[in-house]
């Protein structure tokens, strides 16, 4: 319909960030409507892009119409996987923004315009990462997201937030530097920054054996592993996400690690190619074992937490292990599972973080022990939380079941039984973790109150739910979990449209 839909998706964020900052000086209460409007436009844009990709297979855009790949032109290229990522980012942004609108004055009084500006910049950066086809441009976008997320985390109260943000800055910068070095090596050897171009040159000049390319790959991989909090490079994550303001955590936790996983997948499938990654490099097996370690370690750490958010953070580390392991299973089902899990894990994390935020809002503490009697007190929140938990455990028909299904399928097909066992083990640990919470919420605080012969003690319990601006995003996300589960074969089929053309030999 209109050639610039991609720009319609990303540019509103950057412009609105400026506008919101200006609002902050002049009319602070306009900042929220402006932010909402721009996220709405982005969402519309991303849906339009998705529709276009569905019909045409991909959308290509040359910024400023500089289409020379080796020149100064920056190419944006959206294939099925990235178009889904764009929609995911916009939806999560919208939901967490709605949640933030109700919570922010309490959490960050006086800093609203600042928060919205950073929020929009971060969103723009994430969108940029997912649509760019230029390795260096990706670095720029990565830095935008990093800097804004450091600031957002540091907005939290007290020294702990500042300290966690500092930790996050150090680790994040190390990760980004590794990535940049990797891109540098690539540029030295191939003379190009355009992803497709790099791939073409590697094939054309058969550089697969070149040490430079191998080093570049290792650098980029390590950089992304730090960014996605792959165990044991994950020490920064629990603190950063727990001490961040909940309005930040809800947005950052579902997206940041997942986008880093996306970058890893993109590097494997578009820049270096699956043949190079899985056939020429000898350590596919090692990465899978590291992933198993990450899954087990994340699950064990989660068992030791008494704070709900911190427990969820440990689970994120385990889930990152799912995705990295799945991607390195070196077959299409594993890769499909890994990419599908990006979406389902983002939705689950969002759902659980929103619920955790609501509990914290009501109880003033994040301790699991404070959830006594919440099935009666907050039935809707608990119902949504339960759905999120079921998805983490992998109960059908929620999306968590289906990502596990694809991942296990990939694991069995490539004979990685250790990975399959780790997946099942982590499901069971998740069951323990969440049923521990359900028990507290269900058994704790047994009412001594009398009840009549018909058991009508229901009216004695006061239902005390959060305001609708916080509840609505939660309910929508919980519904989304089931929807992603029900439409899993459509989504997986769409993802595979990016993956199947890569099969050259019999390796895929």
């Amino acid at each position, binding site marked *: 319909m209109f050639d610039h839909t991609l720009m319609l998706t990303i540019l509103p964020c950057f412009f609105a960030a400026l506008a919101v900052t200006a609002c902050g000086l002049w009319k602070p209460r306009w900042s929220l409507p402006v932010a909402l409007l721009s996220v709405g436009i982005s969402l519309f844009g991303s849906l339009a892009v998705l529709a276009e990709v569905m019909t045409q297979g991909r959308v290509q855009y040359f910024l400023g119409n500089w289409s020379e790949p080796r020149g100064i032109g920056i190419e944006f290229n959206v294939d099925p996987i990235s178009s889904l990522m764009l929609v995911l980012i916009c939806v999560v942004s919208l939901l967490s923004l709605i949640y933030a609108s109700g919570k922010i004055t309490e959490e960050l009084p006086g800093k609203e315009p600042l928060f919205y500006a950073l929020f929009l910049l971060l969103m723009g950066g994430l969108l940029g990462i997912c649509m760019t086809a230029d390795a260096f441009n990706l670095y720029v976008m990565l830095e935008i997201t990093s800097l804004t997320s450091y600031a957002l985390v540091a907005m939290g109260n007290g020294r702990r937030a500042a300290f966690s943000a500092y930790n996050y800055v150090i680790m994040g910068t190390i990760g980004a530097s590794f990535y940049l070095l990797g891109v540098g090596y690539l540029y030295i050897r191939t003379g190009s920054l355009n992803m497709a171009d790099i791939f073409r040159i590697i094939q054309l000049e058969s550089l697969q054996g070149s040490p430079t390319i191998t080093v570049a790959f290792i650098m980029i991989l390590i950089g992304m592993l730090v960014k996605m909090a792959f165990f044991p490079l994950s020490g920064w994550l629990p603190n950063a996400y727990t001490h961040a303001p909940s309005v930040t955590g809800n947005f950052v936790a579902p997206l940041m690690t997942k986008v880093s996983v996306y970058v890893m997948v993109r590097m494997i499938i578009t820049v270096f190619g699956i043949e190079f990654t899985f056939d020429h490099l000898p350590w596919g097996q090692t990465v899978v074992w590291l992933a198993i370690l990450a899954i087990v370690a994340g699950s064990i750490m989660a068992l030791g937490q008494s704070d709900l958010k911190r427990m969820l953070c440990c689970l994120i580390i385990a889930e990152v292990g799912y995705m990295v392991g799945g991607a390195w299973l070196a077959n299409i089902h594993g890769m499909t599972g890994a990419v599908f899990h990006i979406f389902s894990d983002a939705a689950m994390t969002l759902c659980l973080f929103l619920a955790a935020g609501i509990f914290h809002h009501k109880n003033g503490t994040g301790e699991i022990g404070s959830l006594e009697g919440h099935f009666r007190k907050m039935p809707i929140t608990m119902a949504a939380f339960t759905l999120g938990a079921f998805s983490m*455990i992998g109960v059908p028909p929620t999306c968590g079941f289906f990502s596990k*299904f694809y991942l*296990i399928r990939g694991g069995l097909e490539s004979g990685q039984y250790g990975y*399959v066992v780790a997946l*099942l083990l982590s499901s*069971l640990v998740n069951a323990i973790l969440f049923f521990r919470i359900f028990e507290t919420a269900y*058994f704790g605080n047994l009412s001594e109150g009398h009840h009549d012969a018909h*058991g*009508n003690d229901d*009216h004695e319990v006061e239902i005390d739910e959060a305001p609708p601006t916080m509840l609505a995003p939660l309910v929508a996300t919980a519904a989304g979990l089931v929807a992603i589960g029900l439409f899993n074969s459509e989504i997986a089929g769409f993802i595979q449209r990016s993956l199947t053309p890569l099969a050259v030999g019999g390796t895929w």
Partner: protein
Amino acid sequence: MGEVVESSKPLWACLVSLLAIVPIVRNRRSPNVRDFWSFVAAFAKFGIVLSMLPLIRDGKVIECTLWEILPGAPIQFRVDAMGMLFALVASTLWIVTTLYGIGYMRGLKEHAQTRFFAFFALALSATLGVAFSANLLTLYVFYEILSLSTFPLVTHHQDKEARRGGRTYLAYLLGTSVGFVLPALVYCYIKTDGNLDFSPDGALSGLLSGKEAMVLMLLLVFGFAKGGLMPFHSWLPGAMVAPTPVSALLHAVAVVKVGVFCILRVITGVLGVETLRAFDLGTVIVWIAGFTVIVSSLIALSQDNLKRRLAFSTIGQLAYIILGASLLAPKGLTGSLMHIAMHAFGKITLFFCAGAIFVANGRKYISQCKGLAREMPFTMTAFAIGALSVVGIPPAGGFVSKLYLVWGTMEADMYQATCFYLVSSFLNACYFFPIIFAAFFQKPENPANGIRESHPCCVAALCITASFTLLLFFHPGPFYWLANMMSQVVF
């Protein structure tokens, strides 16, 4: 397989109790209206199930495809003779249990009755979902929903004991279904290239090597731990902390029978009789189930808590059913399917009686039952009939199915299995008859004055199931020909 008829009836049969949750919860302030809705749903469900019976009788199969959730493995219902038999048992008994549940819950002034009836309805939806599943994926989905929806029922009392029981319950059921069934499910999906449909020859027939078949069989048979095969049986006695209507319907009928139903589906529809015969795997299950039959009966002998004794008796009887199917003989399968129905009616009567005794005078232990028949003549007579059925003595329904089971062992030339059945019947008699003897012929410790029966709803319910148990001996009705049809299709 017979002619396929497309119809949405299976879906409605499954959904009707789910939909009933809405009026049940909405009318939580007026218990009579609320419980009326439970009845409406129960009768509607029964009616829908019954209306499918003539088609099944004509050898047709009713199909209803909902949603292509994975390529080749849709969420799909298919009603065949076996699913019909199980659905008929579950929906008939839900009506009676609703009656009983009202009496029990009101008699004991239990808390949170609305939640109780709502989750009960949900569990019944899941049960029918399992009964009508057309493929392994659909089966697994409803199996998991059933595990989770019964958790609030098992832990209804919300005290320490309930929490412990609930933990064991979930640990065993989720642990086995996620740990064993899920990988087996994915493996089947890969092997069959995405076709998980149950077929009379077995979805996997001809695709497996002996080792694979062995591993898959063990994963699936132990994975559906609701079937209570040892060593994955401990959840069942643990779950007896539930209120008795739950123990009765769910832990003597719906939940445990879902377990054995799943195992029968695996034997007949997934692995296939031919595969099992080819690798001689039936014998493996025969020994596992036989071990469970004998050991659980021995444990039952030592239990003084009435409900726990019934629980161990249930474990043994479930193993009967699994054993019967694993004989891989037509009469064995007929007997095993009939035993699903016969045992259901007999055991639910026994549980109803245990609950009625508790409601009437708070007794839980067998040693307190002396002379009880003078106080509660109806209850104890019903108990005696139920016990006869479980032991397998005429004129109770259990005799008929046991006859077929023993016939099956001879057909399959497995005389060790014959021994299992006979020894266990003797043990069953050993653990039931002392109760009956004590209740009818011993003098009560503190002689009561007159008849003190339980809540009338409870008494009515247990009289109904006891008379069904007797009736089924004289006229096994649809249960016989449905079971027979199924074994004709399979063999």
